[in-house]
């Protein structure tokens, strides 16, 4: 079997004196959707930030398309083909939608394909085309998430990492976001998805990893974990009770 697109090996990450990730290993195969699930504070966002170069590991390595990644700067990692859509979307609110999309294609690798990528994004989200000259800050929550994902698509990434894309959206929008992730995947984009909406995430994931207090405690196919007794009790049941 071919090597995975992304491989994380024995990663230790610290915030000052606090160890957040312990010996984390996972792999993402090309063309798949991989879900990373777990409770608040388990270290999911930390892992994504380490992959995208915002944080550096104390130990371990990250290999992407057979080349090490963990010593590179964030901007160079984007150029290599990984785009990170951070929690809370982090759009440039004072910039227009079109300007946000332009910056999505900022890397030397993506820039020549700007018009082609723009066409693709406008096809996925016609609403962004209608409002292209509007400031991003004026969009609704759902539209902002579309723009965040659209901006990521502009970079022509091999891998998109989505951090809590459904956070703060209405149930109807949550469903359409998950449909969208599925659509992106059929367009041959590999996806690493961090979600608190564990039920939905496991449903669309080919592969899933469960992170608990900085450690991977379980992994398997999404549909397997979905019916796993322990998972249901620990995460899905808990969410159901909360509602």
């Amino acid at each position, binding site marked *: 079997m071919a090597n995975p697109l992304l491989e994380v090996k024995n990663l230790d990450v610290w915030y000052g004196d606090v160890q957040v990730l312990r010996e984390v290993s996972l792999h993402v195969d090309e063309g798949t959707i991989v879900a990373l699930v777990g409770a608040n504070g388990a270290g999911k966002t930390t892992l994504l930030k380490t992959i995208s170069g915002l944080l550096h590991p104390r130990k371990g390595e990250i290999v992407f398309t057979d080349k090490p990644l963990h010593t590179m700067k964030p901007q160079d990692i984007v150029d290599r083909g990984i785009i990170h859509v951070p929690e809370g979307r982090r*759009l440039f609110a*004072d910039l227009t939608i079109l300007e946000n999309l332009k910056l999505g294609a900022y890397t030397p690798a993506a820039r020549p394909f700007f018009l082609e990528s723009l066409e693709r994004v406008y096809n996925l989200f016609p609403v962004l085309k209608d409002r292209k000259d509007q400031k991003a800050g004026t969009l609704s929550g759902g539209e902002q998430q579309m723009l965040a994902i659209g901006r990521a698509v502009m970079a022509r990434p091999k891998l998109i990492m989505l951090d809590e894309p459904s956070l703060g959206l209405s149930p109807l929008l949550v469903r359409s976001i998950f449909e969208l992730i599925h659509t992106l995947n059929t367009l041959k984009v590999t996806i690493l998805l961090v979600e608190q909406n564990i039920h939905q995430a496991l449903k669309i994931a080919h592969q899933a990893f469960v992170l608990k207090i900085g450690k991977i405690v379980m992994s398997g196919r999404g549909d397997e974990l979905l019916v796993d007794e322990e998972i249901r009790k620990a995460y899905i049941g808990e969410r159901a009770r909360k509602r």
Partner: protein
Amino acid sequence: MGDIGLIAQVVVNGILFGSMYGIAAIGLSLIFGTMRIVFIAQGAVIVLFAYFCFWLFSLLGIDPYLSLIPIILAALLLGTAFYYGLFREAAAFKDRIGSLLIAVGLMFFLENFMTVVWTPNPRAVVSSYGFYTFRLFGMHFTLVRVIGLVLAILATIAVATFLKKTLIGTAVRAVSEDVEASTLMGINPDRVNAVTFAIGIGLAAIAGTTLATTYSFDPVYGIDFAIKALVALTLGGIGRVGAAFLGGIILGLIELLGTYFVGAAWSQAIVFAVFLLALNFRPQGLFGGATSEKA
């Protein structure tokens, strides 16, 4: 009628004067926006370029407006050097106290450097057309001041166009909003910061040339100028090029109208009183929109 004519004259001079504060304020706005650095040395840098202009004029006989070309080029290099040599670390950590101290240190260094090189005596560039005036609508215009205003307006339009129309300019605005999110787009913040610093110092070069051709200056003239530029910036509103420029114009008007109506001694007090009032009632600036505070 004579009175109104005189007031109109004062207004015109205030606008011409304020345009220099305006472009200095734009430089401060850009540098603060992307790097959160209060670049208090801006005034000393302006005076440094006034001396460059003075030297090129008095030693080599180069026309001050022709000297703009080498001076702006030198400014872009100097701005890049300032960033990589002095402010890079502080900018990376958003260390406002650290960067302010570095800027203050740079200011004192430049003041003393200029005192040694050019003596503390006031200098001015007096070209053959330096006193040429013309009448229009019953008012007197000094040619060099009008050229100064035109240069300031052109520089403002150029910077606004750069920020709006180019990809790197868009990146400058993005870094001002959210550095981390910018790096996740593949933007190199160091490059953006260096470009921003170069533009800020480039604007100082234009202000310096205008200063040299319209007023006399000495090595310690800069601090007053830098503080006025900061006031102009706060008055207009941080984050918009046009707002910073208008803030400068308004400041120039207040200063000269204050001198005319109340007297020169009071005009400085009035400037700062208006500044404090504006801060109190419109902290976002007169022309700044509601700034969106990011969580």
